[in-house]
C-alpha cells in the first residue's frame, strides 16, 4: 500500500480528483443480458449493393438476423472480429434503409423489429454509483454503444423511410414495444436518451392509436418518480417530448390533460433534482397556460403550495418560472392570484440568500409585470411595502439594498399617497404584529397548561371523561383569569420593547422625504 501523506490522514476524505479518477475507470457499464450462451463467430455476408436485386431481400433478412447476435462489451478483447462484422453490417443496414426505396416490404417488418428489440430492450444495469449526482458526476456510459447506437440509428431511419407504413408496423410497434422503449429512458447514457427522445417523438407522430397509451405511461413514470423512487434519468427528455405534444392539444382541453397538468406536472416541481429538467418543465407549464389561460390560478396556487422552503437554488428556479408565467398572464387572471403570489414574492425579496432576493427583485425590470403591478398598486403595495422597507435597512448585500431602493422608488411613483400612508403607519403596524404574536403565544401557553393540568389527557386515557370535562372547565376559568392579568403586564413590556427597537432603527424619514416632492 502506498505511503499516505499527512494531509490525507488529517481530513480522511480523498481528494475529488482521486474520486473522479476512480470513477472514470469504471464509467463503463453494460446492461445487455449477459447470461446468454457464448456468441457464435460471425462470418461476413456479401454486400447488399453487390447482390442482384432478386436476392437483396433475402440477404437483407440474413443480415438482420446476423445482427441479433449480442456481444459482451465489458470484455474488450473477445470476439473482436465478429464485433467488427456486426458493426459494419449495421452501418450497411442503416445506409440501406435510408437511401433505398421499396426495401420495406411487409415481410421485412417482423425481422426488422425483432432485430431492434433484441438489441435495445434490456434491463438497465444497477447504477455503478448509487449516489449518482447527475450535476456533478460523469454518467456511466453504455459499453455496447458502438452497436446500440447503430441500431437506434437504424430504427430512426426505418421510421423515417418514406415507404414506412404504420398500418403494418403497428402489429410490431405495439404497446409492449412502447413500454419497453419508455423504460430505457432511465438510461444513464445521455446519448442513448437523446436517440430515444427522437424515436419516441416519431412514434407518437406516426401511430395515432398509441398516443393515449404513451401519454398514460409517461404519467405513470412521472408519478413513480415523484411519489416512489425519486429516480429516473429521462425526465427531461420525456418532458421535452410532452412540450411539443401539449402544443398540439385541441381546445377546449380535455379533462385528462388538465389532470396531467395539475396532478403530475405541478407535483414534479417537488423533486430534489428539479434543476435537471426545470427548463423543460416550465416550458410545458407555460404551454398549457398559453392554451388555456383559466388554468393560471390553479397552477400558481400549486406552485405556491410546493414553494421550496430550504433550497435556495430551487427557489430561484421557481421565481424564474413565475416570471415566465407572468409574461403570458392575462390581466384578469393576474387579479385573481396577485395577493397570494405577492405575499410569496415579498418573502423572496427579503430572503437572506441574495440570489433569491435578486431574482425576485428582477421582476421590476420586466415592463409587462410593471404594468400589471401599476394597475393593481393599491393591492400590491401594502403587501410588498413591509419587507421592502425592512430589507432596505437590514439586508447584508449592498446590491440587494440598491435594488430595493430602486423598487421602492418605482412603487412610490406608482401611488405616492398610499406610499406615504404606509410609511407613516409602518411602525404602528410592526408593533401591532408583535403584539399579536405575543397574544398568540399566550393563548397556546394557556392551552398547554390546560393539557398539563389534565393528567388523564397526558396519559391519553379518557375513561373518566365527563368528570374530566368539568375539571377542565374550572381549570380553564382559573387559567383565564390569571393569564389575563399576566397578559396586561406582558403587553406593556412588549410595547415598550417594540418602541425601543424601532427607535434604534434608522428612521423612515429617508423614504418619507423622498416622497414629499411627489406629494406636491
Amino acid at each position, binding site marked *: 500500500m502506498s505511503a499516505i501523506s499527512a494531509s490525507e490522514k488529517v481530513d*480522511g476524505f480523498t481528494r475529488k480528483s482521486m474520486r473522479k479518477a476512480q470513477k472514470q475507470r469504471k464509467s463503463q457499464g453494460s446492461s445487455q443480458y449477459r*447470461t446468454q450462451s457464448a456468441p457464435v463467430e460471425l462470418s461476413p455476408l456479401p454486400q447488399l449493393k453487390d447482390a442482384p436485386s432478386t436476392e437483396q431481400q433475402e440477404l437483407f433478412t440474413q443480415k438482420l438476423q446476423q445482427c441479433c447476435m449480442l456481444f459482451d462489451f465489458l470484455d474488450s478483447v473477445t470476439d473482436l472480429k465478429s464485433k467488427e462484422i456486426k458493426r459494419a453490417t449495421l452501418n450497411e443496414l442503416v445506409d440501406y434503409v435510408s437511401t433505398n426505396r421499396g426495401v420495406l416490404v411487409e415481410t421485412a417488418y417482423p425481422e426488422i423489429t425483432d432485430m431492434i428489440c433484441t438489441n435495445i430492450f434490456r434491463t438497465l444495469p*444497477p447504477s455503478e454509483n448509487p449516489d449518482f449526482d447527475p450535476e456533478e458526476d460523469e454518467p456511466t456510459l453504455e459499453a455496447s454503444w458502438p452497436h446500440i447506437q447503430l441500431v437506434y440509428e437504424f430504427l430512426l431511419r426505418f421510421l423515417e423511410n418514406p415507404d414506412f407504413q404504420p398500418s403494418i408496423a403497428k402489429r410490431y410497434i405495439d404497446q409492449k414495444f412502447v413500454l419497453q422503449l419508455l423504460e430505457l429512458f432511465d438510461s444513464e447514457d445521455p446519448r442513448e436518451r437523446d436517440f430515444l427522445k427522437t424515436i419516441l417523438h416519431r412514434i407518437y407522430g406516426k401511430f395515432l392509436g398509441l398516443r393515449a397509451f404513451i401519454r398514460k405511461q409517461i404519467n405513470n413514470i412521472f408519478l413513480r418518480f415523484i411519489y416512489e423512487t425519486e429516480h429516473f434519468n429521462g425526465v427531461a427528455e420525456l418532458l421535452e417530448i410532452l412540450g411539443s405534444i401539449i402544443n398540439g392539444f385541441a381546445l377546449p382541453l380535455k379533462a385528462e390533460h388538465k389532470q396531467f397538468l395539475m396532478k403530475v406536472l405541478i407535483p414534479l416541481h417537488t423533486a430534489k433534482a428539479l434543476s435537471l429538467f426545470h427548463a423543460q418543465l416550465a416550458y410545458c407549464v407555460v404551454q398549457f397556460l398559453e392554451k388555456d389561460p383559466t388554468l393560471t390560478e390553479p397552477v400558481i396556487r400549486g406552485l405556491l403550495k410546493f414553494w421550496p422552503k430550504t433550497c435556495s437554488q430551487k427557489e430561484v428556479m421557481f421565481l424564474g418560472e413565475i416570471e415566465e408565467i407572468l409574461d403570458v398572464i392575462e390581466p384578469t387572471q393576474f387579479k385573481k392570484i396577485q395577493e397570494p403570489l405577492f405575499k410569496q414574492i415579498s418573502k423572496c425579496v427579503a430572503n437572506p440568500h441574495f440570489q433569491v432576493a435578486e431574482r425576485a427583485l428582477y421582476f421590476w425590470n420586466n415592463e409587462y409585470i410593471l404594468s400589471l403591478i401599476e394597475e393593481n398598486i393599491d393591492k400590491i403595495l401594502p403587501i410588498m411595502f413591509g419587507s421592502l422597507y425592512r430589507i432596505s435597512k437590514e439586508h447584508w448585500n449592498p446590491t440587494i439594498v440598491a435594488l430595493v431602493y430602486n423598487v421602492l422608488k418605482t412603487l412610490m411613483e406608482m401611488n405616492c399617497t398610499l406610499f406615504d400612508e404606509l410609511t407613516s403607519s409602518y411602525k404602528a403596524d410592526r408593533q401591532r404584529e408583535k403584539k399579536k404574536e405575543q397574544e398568540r403565544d399566550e393563548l397556546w401557553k394557556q392551552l398547554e397548561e390546560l*393539557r398539563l393540568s389534565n393528567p388523564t389527557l397526558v396519559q*391519553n386515557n*379518557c375513561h373518566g*371523561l365527563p368528570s374530566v370535562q368539568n375539571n377542565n372547565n374550572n381549570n380553564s376559568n382559573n387559567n383565564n383569569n390569571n393569564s389575563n392579568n399576566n397578559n396586561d403586564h406582558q403587553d406593556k413590556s412588549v410595547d415598550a420593547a417594540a418602541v425601543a427597537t424601532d427607535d434604534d432603527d434608522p428612521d423612515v424619514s429617508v423614504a418619507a422625504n423622498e416622497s414629499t416632492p411627489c406629494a406636491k
Partner: protein
Amino acid sequence: TNLQQRRREGPAAALLWQKPRSAAQQRHSVTAILSKMAGADGDDSLYPIAVLIDELRNEDVQLRLNSIKKLSTIALALGVERTRTELLPFLTDTIYDEDEVLLALAEQLGNFTMLVGGPEYVHCLLPPLESLATVEETVVRDKAVESLRKISQEHSPVDLEVHFEPLVKRLASGDWFTSRTSACGLFSVCYPRVSSTVKAEIRQHFRTLCSDDTPMVRRAAASKLGEFAKVLELDYVKSDIISLFTALASDEQDSVRLLAVEACVSIATLLPQEDLETLVMPTLRQAAEDKSWRVRYMVADKFSELQKAVGPEITKNDLVPAFQNLLKDCEAEVRAAAANKVKEFCENLPEDSREQIIMTHILPCVKELVSDTNQHVKSALASVIMGLSTILGKDNTIEHLLPLFLAQLKDECPEVRLNIISNLDCVNEVIGIRQLSQSLLPAIVELAEDAKWRVRLAIIEYMPLLAGQLGVEFFDEKLNTLCMAWLIDHVYAIREAATCNLMKLVEKFGAEWAQNTIVPKVLGMANDPNYLHRMTTLFCINALSEACGQDITTKQMLPVVLKMSNDQVANVRFNVAKSLQKIGPVLDSNALQTEVKPVLEKLATDTDMDVKYFAQEAISVLALA
C-alpha cells in the same frame, strides 16, 4: 359518492380556505377569543374550537401545524359530543392544506377513539381519514392508512360491515390511483371479522386491484399480497391467491414482479408441503432466473426466508442450484446479496446432507467470490464467511476456509479486511486464532495506517477483542506500538478512541501490565512540544486512573498532572483542572488536601476564564473549598 362530491368541491373549498385574511380580521378574531377567555360570563368551553379554527386558518404553516398537533387537547376540552358533531365535520370539510399539516392530522386521528366517545363512535373518524387516504403525497396517505388500520380494530363487527368495509370499497373503486393504492392496505384488517358474503366482495376487490391499470396500484396490491393471504381461508389461498401471485410474478414491470417474491415467503409458509411444488415452485424458479436483476436481487435478499418456507426437500433439489446461480450472477448487486446469505443458507441446510452440499456445491462458488471483481461482493462475503467455520468444523476450516480467510486478509479493499477481522471470534472458537496470526498482523498494521480515519477507528475498536484472543505476549510484541501511535493521530476521534482502547486493555491485562508498558509512555508525552499530545496524556490519565488503582494514580500520574498546571497553553491548564476532578475520587484525602487543593486554588486565580471556571468546578465537586 359523498367522497367524490367532496373531492370535486376540494379546490373551491380551498379557495375559501386559503383566502388571505386581512390583518384586521385576524386581529379581531384573536381579540375576540381573548375577551372570551377573560369574560367570566362567556361560554368558556367555546374557546378551544375558536382558537383552533383561527389558528387553522392562519397563513403561517407552522401555526397551523401547532394547532393540529394539539388537536387532542382541543377535543378533550370540547367533550366527546362536540368533537363528533363540530370538530370532525369541520376537519373533514376543510381538508386541503400543506402535506405537513395533513400528516399531523392523519396521525392524530389514529389516536382519537376515546376522544370521540370510545369504540361505539369510532366510525366518526372515518370520513376525515378517508379523505386523507386519497391525498397525493405518499407519507400522508400511508399515515392515514396506518391510522385506519389502527382504528379498524376498535370497530365492532357490525360497525366494520356498516361503516368500515364500505369505505374500503369506495377507496378500491376510486378514480385516481391514490385511493386504490390506499385500499390495498385495508383489506387484510377487515377480512377476518366480516360475514362470508362481505368476504367474497373483499376478495373480488382485491383481485381487481391486482390487475389494475396503473403499476402503482399493482405494486401496492403485490406488496400486500402476503399479508392478505395470511388472513384468508386455505381454500381461497389455493384458488385465489395463487393465481394472483402467478400473475403479479409475471407482470410486465419488474417493480411489480419483485414484490411478488416477498409475498412468496408468506404464501409458501401457509401452504401444506405437498402443494408447494405445483403451486409455488414454478413461479419461484422463474423469479430466480428473471431477466431483471432487481427481481433476482430480491430472491437473493429473501433467500433465507424462502428456504425456511419451502422446507428441506425443495431446498436440496431446487434452492441449492438456484443459490449457486445467484452467487454467479452477472450483476454484482445480486452476487453481493447472495454472498450475504451464504452463512444463513448453509446453517439452515438439512443436517444430514449439510456438509456434503456445502463442500460440493457452495464452497466452489464461495472460492470464486473471494476474488470477485466487485468490492461490495467481496466485503459482503467477508462479513459472513467466518461463520462457515463453526458449521464445517476444524479440519475443513483449516483445509478449505483458512486459505480464503488469508486471501481476504490481504484484499486490496480495507472493508474486506475489516470485515474478516471483526468476525475473528467465530474462527477463534473452532481453530484458535494462532493459525491466522501471521497473516493477521500485516493486515492489522495496514488498516491501522489506512488513509481513511473511519477505517482506523474501526480497527481500534477491535483491538481489545484481538488482544484477548492473541494473548499478552503477542500483543506486547506486535501491537503495543500501534496502540501508542494512535495516541498521536492527527484526528481527534482516533486519539479519543485510542485512549478508550488503552482503558479496555488495562481492564484485560491488569494494573501491573499497565504500569510496565503503558503508563511510562503515556506520561512521557506530557513533555511533548505539541500541546495536543500533552492533552492526550491528561485524557489517558482520566481513562486509566480507575483501572490502575490508587497506588499508580497517586505515585505516578498525579505528579505529572500537577506539573502540567504550569503549562503555558490554557487548554492544557483547564484540562488539568478537569483531570484532577476526574481522578480525585481515586486519591486519598491526604493527597487531595496537600497536593491537589493548592494547585486548584492557584488555577482558580488563573488569567484565563475557562481555567478559572473548571478549577472552581473541581474544587466544589471534590469538596475542597
